[in-house]
């Protein structure tokens, strides 16, 4: 048992590290984010800088590592991808802009698109020249995604899309999107779905930002009014969209490790500096108990990840243990944010960066934290997944089983 690289892994790490050193600045503090170093937080600027960095990676052979070389990747092994991720996280680099496209749209195209389409779309996706988004959720279809209502009607060689998608990250700057829509309301809900990709500049597509609890707008509603797309943009069979969507969701990367907001170290630092009953708060046993609990969770997730990485390093498939990551991490982040406010006592109410500790990061995190427990699978869906896929418990009987979609009660 050790934490050492194999000689091949060490060589790869050195190569990755040398390239990064030559091209991007290191983080000065472990928790420093790239966004915090920007002078303007304007999203066009973020996208432009992200594109510049992605192009650099692409030219250096570091984009979409595990993709085949002919589509712009490097043909790297899973463990090499992990090592790159570890090394890159030590540097101040843009993140988030390409994750959904490269992580979800890419694999779907790889599996379902024609060779010509792959040649056309994958390399610019890898280089960052074109950005992709994912159009899945709807206001009435979140955890029950297969209950979606976006309508796809066939017209000759075309399809006409009508309806609304929601929670689309980055729709306002994306060039293309993958979308799942209902092509048949007369069959059971999972069987009436068809999967497509489309140009986000198509006539009839309208992107509207959603204002979040935090005041920011990272997501959008996307409205489709008679949007015409060619049947050649269909991915998979007509009525086979659910299977394609599942492939995509398997690739959804839910990494709470990079979630913004204070972690255990910042909570501990705050407890050392703030007074409670005339002494540093960290001397209080209740405070210590909380810190110990979060350390156990933080360390437990870290070493769970190490176990998975070790399996990859041996060329094995990791066990199901990683399924707990987001479930544990999101609640912990929410608890830590709330803890910070408690330590500040009445001043925990104040959200002015100039007036409270840590530039009001605990206050911002308090408002942002609920999203982590919902996005990419709610706590409840994740618990179902663990119970059913890991522990093998039976599915809950469904009220809509075997019904035609049009007959399913919607409460509307």
């Amino acid at each position, binding site marked *: *048992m*050790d*934490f*050492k*690289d194999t000689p091949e*892994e060490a060589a790869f790490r050195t190569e990755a590290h040398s390239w990064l050193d030559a091209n991007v600045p290191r983080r000065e503090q472990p928790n420093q984010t790239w966004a915090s170093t920007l002078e303007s937080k304007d999203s066009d600027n973020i996208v432009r800088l992200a594109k510049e960095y992605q192009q650099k990676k692409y030219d250096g052979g570091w984009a979409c590592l595990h993709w085949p070389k002919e589509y712009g990747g490097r043909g790297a092994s899973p463990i090499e991808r992990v090592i790159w991720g570890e090394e890159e996280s030590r540097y101040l680099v843009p993140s988030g802009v390409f994750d959904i496209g490269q992580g979800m749209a890419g694999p779907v195209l790889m599996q379902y698109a024609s060779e010509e389409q792959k040649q056309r779309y994958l390399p610019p996706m890898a280089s960052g020249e074109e950005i992709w988004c994912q159009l899945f959720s709807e206001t009435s279809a979140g955890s029950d995604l297969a209950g979606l209502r976006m309508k796809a009607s066939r017209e000759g060689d075309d399809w006409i899309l009508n309806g609304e998608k929601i929670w689309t990250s980055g729709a306002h700057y994306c060039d293309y999107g993958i979308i799942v829509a209902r092509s048949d309301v007369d069959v059971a809900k999972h069987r009436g779905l068809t999967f497509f990709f489309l140009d986000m500049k198509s006539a009839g597509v309208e992107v509207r930002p959603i204002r979040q609890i935090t005041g920011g707008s990272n997501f959008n509603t996307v409205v489709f009014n008679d949007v015409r797309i060619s049947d050649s943009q269909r991915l998979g069979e007509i009525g086979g969209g659910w299977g394609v969507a599942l492939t995509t969701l398997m690739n959804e990367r839910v990494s709470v490790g990079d979630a913004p907001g204070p972690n255990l*170290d910042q909570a*501990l*630092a705050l407890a*050392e500096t703030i007074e409670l009953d005339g002494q540093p708060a*960290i001397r209080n*046993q209740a405070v*210590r*108990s909380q*810190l*110990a*609990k979060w*350390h*156990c*969770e933080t*360390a*437990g*997730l*870290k*070493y*769970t990840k*190490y*176990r998975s*990485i*070790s*399996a990859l*390093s*041996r060329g094995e498939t990791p066990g199901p*243990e990683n399924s*707990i990551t987001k*479930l*544990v991490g999101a609640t912990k982040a929410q608890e830590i944010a709330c803890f910070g406010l408690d330590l500040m006592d009445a001043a925990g109410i104040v959200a002015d960066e100039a007036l409270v500790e840590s530039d009001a990061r605990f206050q911002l995190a308090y408002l942002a934290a609920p999203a982590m427990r919902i996005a990419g699978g709610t706590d*409840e869906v*994740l*618990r*179902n997944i*663990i*119970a*059913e896929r*890991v*522990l*093998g*418990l*039976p*599915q*809950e*009987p469904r009220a809509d089983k075997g019904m035609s979609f049009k007959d399913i009660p919607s409460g509307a």
Partner: protein
Amino acid sequence: MNFEFSDEQKMLREQAGSFLRDKSPLTALREIYEGDEPYQRELWQEMAGLGWMSTTIPEQYGGIGLGSLELCVIAEELGRSLAATPFSSSVYLATEAILMAGNEAQKESYLPQLASGELIGCFALSEGPCAATENNLQTRFDGDSLSGTKLPVTDGNVSDFAIVCAKDAAGSSWYLVDLRADGVERKPVRSLDPSRDQALIEFNNAPAQLLGDAGSGWQLTSALYNRAAVLFAFEQTGGALAALDQARAYAMERYAFGRPIGSFQAIKHKLADMYALATLAHSNCYYGAWALSTDAPELTLAAATARVSATRAYNECASENIQTHGGMGFTWEFDCHFHLRRARVLALNLGSQYQWEDKLVTALEQRNQAAA
């Protein structure tokens, strides 16, 4: 990265697991609960035959000289099986204490018989209801012999000797005491877990010999507990996983409202949370195992993390296993209470959760100071 047990260690775990399923089913545990034997004597002999007691004892003292990683995988399986033996007292504590602090003569006289399982040892610290500290110890070595009362001493009635932490002229020290000698009176006390022997031991001018440096008793205890905490955490995690298995099996076979209760989200989510806690504990145990086997400077933090995490996981899994079983889980006849009892005994044996949380945060503070 190779953060995993070796193929040989995994094979040992499988062998230990299948041996214990075969030789120590829960019916054997129930016989201890309901009979007069304090532990599974026959099983103990067979475990000795497999060399488990001699795992970390060097060959020169009759052991097989493997590392602590091998002991960790055995501990996990013992915890899973709930076997009623004095293994933790004799191996994680008494053997380890002699390896840590014994002089050559003491090692030669104790280790070979500990290795063969002929001799059973235990560790005596607690003196009644409150956390022991170096200052509140009442048991005293007066320069000649030992006097005082220890309660509870786990496996105190079935052990041949005890390592006693006592006050003396140098502060506090460890003493080796023959429990069969004059001046030692011991009796079983009723406890939460009838499958683990607990004793009240009175020492009245009992003969005792110093183990380790005079005055180092508290420091040694703390170091011993760090090492033992990792092994206890493996037992606790094994127990947590076994309790989860019981809950899962029952949730699949028990029907209510016309369907298996495991199809209700209320039960699924409970079991998913148990799985998450047991997985965190397991991964923290791995790190503890690494720190233990390499004698890493991070051992205190790693041990406390494994310990706090495993205590929480086993408590939660043991009590939620009963909850999943409903009324039947509260019966003597069902096996759920075995875990409820064992979870608490393992959680308290090396000091309470508060103490380990405190130790954990202190280790974090020290790490941060060292980094600054």
